[in-house]
């Protein structure tokens, strides 16, 4: 059993998979921060709480927030840590083909990032555009993420899914390992549980 065996063993078993794949759609534009501390914040909300009302500037130019859908739609908030990073660039494009699934559960999707609108505009254009509103939590920096308790110490947000029902009640919270993308099936299952 030579050195190569042990190198292979290390590479294949001990080194974790990256947890993301890169689409050729982004060329060489993606910045890889490497493996990060899985979670770096403490939640300030829990399932059953009334969701705070907020609005943030959207790429559309309007201010958008979950309160605008009260009584009409369930709202799925998808927080991502940062634009132009590997896992995030490998998350929202999937939701881009999943609109029928959200529609089926009477839900709207709101993407939220602490990036500026300029950066988010360039990034989402590289994805080919998105059907859902993308909101910038840039200034005051991370105010909304912090209110939910998902602002990390480096100023990025956690990778989190928060579902608010039509009455404005938080019905589902999932904060992922920041290095991993949450399963779409998990999100849809959570929606099914609140829209039987």
């Amino acid at each position, binding site marked *: 059993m030579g050195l*190569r*065996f042990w*190198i*292979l*063993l290390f*590479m*294949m*078993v001990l080194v974790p*998979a*990256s*947890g*993301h*794949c*890169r*689409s*050729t*759609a982004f060329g060489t534009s993606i910045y890889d921060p490497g493996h990060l501390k899985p979670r770096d914040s403490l939640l300030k909300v829990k399932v059953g709480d009334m969701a705070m009302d907020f609005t943030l500037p959207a790429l559309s130019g309007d201010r958008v927030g979950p309160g605008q859908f009260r009584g009409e739609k369930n709202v799925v908030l998808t927080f991502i840590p940062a634009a132009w990073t590997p896992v995030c660039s*490998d*998350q929202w*494009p*999937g939701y*881009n*083909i*999943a609109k029928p*699934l959200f529609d089926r559960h009477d839900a709207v999707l709101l993407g939220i990032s602490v990036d500026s609108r300029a950066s988010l505009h360039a990034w989402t254009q590289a*994805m*080919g555009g998105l059907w859902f509103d993308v909101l910038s939590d840039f200034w005051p920096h991370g105010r909304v993420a912090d209110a939910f308790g998902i602002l990390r110490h480096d100023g990025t947000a956690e990778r989190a899914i928060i579902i608010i029902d039509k009455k404005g009640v938080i019905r589902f919270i999932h904060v992922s390992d920041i290095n991993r*993308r949450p*399963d*779409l*099936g998990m999100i*849809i299952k959570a929606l099914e549980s609140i829209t039987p």
Partner: protein
Amino acid sequence: MYRIIFAFLLFIPSVAQATDSAGIGERLIRIELPAPETPGMRDYLGVGSKPTFTMDEIDARVVIVEIFSMYCPHCQREAPRVNRFYDLLQERGTPGAAFKLIGIGVGNTPFEVTYFRTTYGISFPLFADEDFTIHKALGEVKTPYFICLARSADGSFQVVFSRAGGMDDPGVFLNKIMKQIENRR
């Protein structure tokens, strides 16, 4: 899972070959996949009733593998073209001596692979590589990524070529594959 990892440890020739196309193909040939649940897909691959199979057990002269992700915008745009490519293969193929096409959804759960299939009306077998095991073994290639395997005279599969990015025109892509196979003879 442990069988897959063990197979990787046995056969990966060198870490330095992580992005080498021949190396990728060699690893791919030995990867064990779960047999499809539907009889039609099992018949397509010719893998009988076994619970798992490896590439070299596929009843085909040539196997084209697409490494994709439901989350990859390029893969989404490419899906209709890949479907046309599959139709072209079906037109040219004959049972037992055909060109076969499969897809591996890296980092995708079975739910996500099924949704991708449904969204784009995909008729060829797709497999979920939920924990990136296969992706990691292939050197974490970008998606979409195509690998073409062809049988040699001794019956084993060899890599004809591989490429990152879309196939563009399905007919041109197929002709390129045919030319590569001809060049090997």
